[in-house]
């Protein structure tokens, strides 16, 4: 169902199911984005909860000229930034091994060495992204995991599109060297 229709249903009829469907559409992308910003399960879950609560409270004030997804990501980004500020930029990195149920490769029963190799690559990638500066990391996460266009990212972060593109370029360069170092070890 269309976002604006779901919003109308929630705001005028108080339809909780419509609100759950609306937020549920972007839940996974938002979770992945916040995860890339925080790299900590508990903080990530808290930020998600807070983001959705704030979004539901602010939904009656939402104006349709903005894309709902961008609007939601803006709230999520602010929440993630406030968590980062609270923790004084102490980012605790959780390794993917702590969440083995997440790996779909296990279901397909490939060779153990292959699984290990995939997991190492994933871990290296995750770590490389977590090492990016905050401003570059948020652009990469919003573009790759949130699948937001650069124009909307520029609106969310409140910077000109040229700055966002420059951050993406810098992140690409940094990731390339970080991954070369990680995988070349």
């Amino acid at each position: 169902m269309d976002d604006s229709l779901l919003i109308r249903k929630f705001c005028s009829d108080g339809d909780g199911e419509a609100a759950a469907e609306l937020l549920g559409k972007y839940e996974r992308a938002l979770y992945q984005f916040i995860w890339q910003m925080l790299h900590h399960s508990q903080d990530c879950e808290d930020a998600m909860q807070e983001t959705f609560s704030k979004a539901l409270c602010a939904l009656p004030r939402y104006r349709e000229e903005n894309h709902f997804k961008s609007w939601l990501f803006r709230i999520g980004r602010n929440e993630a930034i406030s968590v980062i500020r609270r923790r004084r930029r102490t980012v605790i990195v959780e390794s993917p091994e702590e969440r083995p149920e997440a790996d779909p490769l296990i279901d397909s029963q490939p060779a153990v060495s292959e699984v290990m190799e995939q997991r190492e690559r994933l871990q290296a990638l995750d770590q490389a992204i977590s090492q990016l500066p905050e401003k570059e990391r948020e652009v990469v996460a919003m573009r790759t995991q949130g699948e937001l266009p650069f124009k909307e990212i520029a609106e969310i972060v409140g910077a000109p599109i040229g700055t966002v593109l420059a951050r993406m370029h810098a992140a690409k360069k940094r990731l390339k060297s970080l991954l070369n170092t990680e995988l070349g070890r």
Partner: protein
Amino acid sequence: MMNQKTRDEILLYWSGEADAAQEARVQVLLKSDPEARVYFDELCQFDVLRERLASSPSMPSSGSFAEHAVCEMLAERSGWRGIGPWVSVAAVVIVILAAANRMWPSNEERKETVVREGTQEEGLVLPRAMERPRLSQRLFVRERHTARLPKILIARERARKLRIRLEKFPQ
């Protein structure tokens, strides 16, 4: 060496946000410039990156955040709805009590008026402290405002003054 403008155009082209003119320029560039092609290929690695990261992190098994947030909000709303009527009843009662309190004069006010009238009738000038009833009377007297009350109070006050005069009398 690519300049920043070209790089930005390639980024927009890769993102699917380039306009028609930018798109045409980038397509020509990708055919002619190996450096631009390498840059574009590297950007395509981000698509691979997205696919790889699609499974990481997993959503927590505790359930949907969206559903949880909606349930919480609805519970909060219904809670307020339950309390709402009681709050309005309490507000109405408070308003009625406040209005009654304003209309109904206090015992102290009544006594002061009576004493003042009594002394004025007699043409006596009493010190300010003596015009007021005793503290015990002010605190504990709870009589209703009846027609007989002023007379009783005047009589009581006269008795009090007489007692004072007698006390001053030499033994």
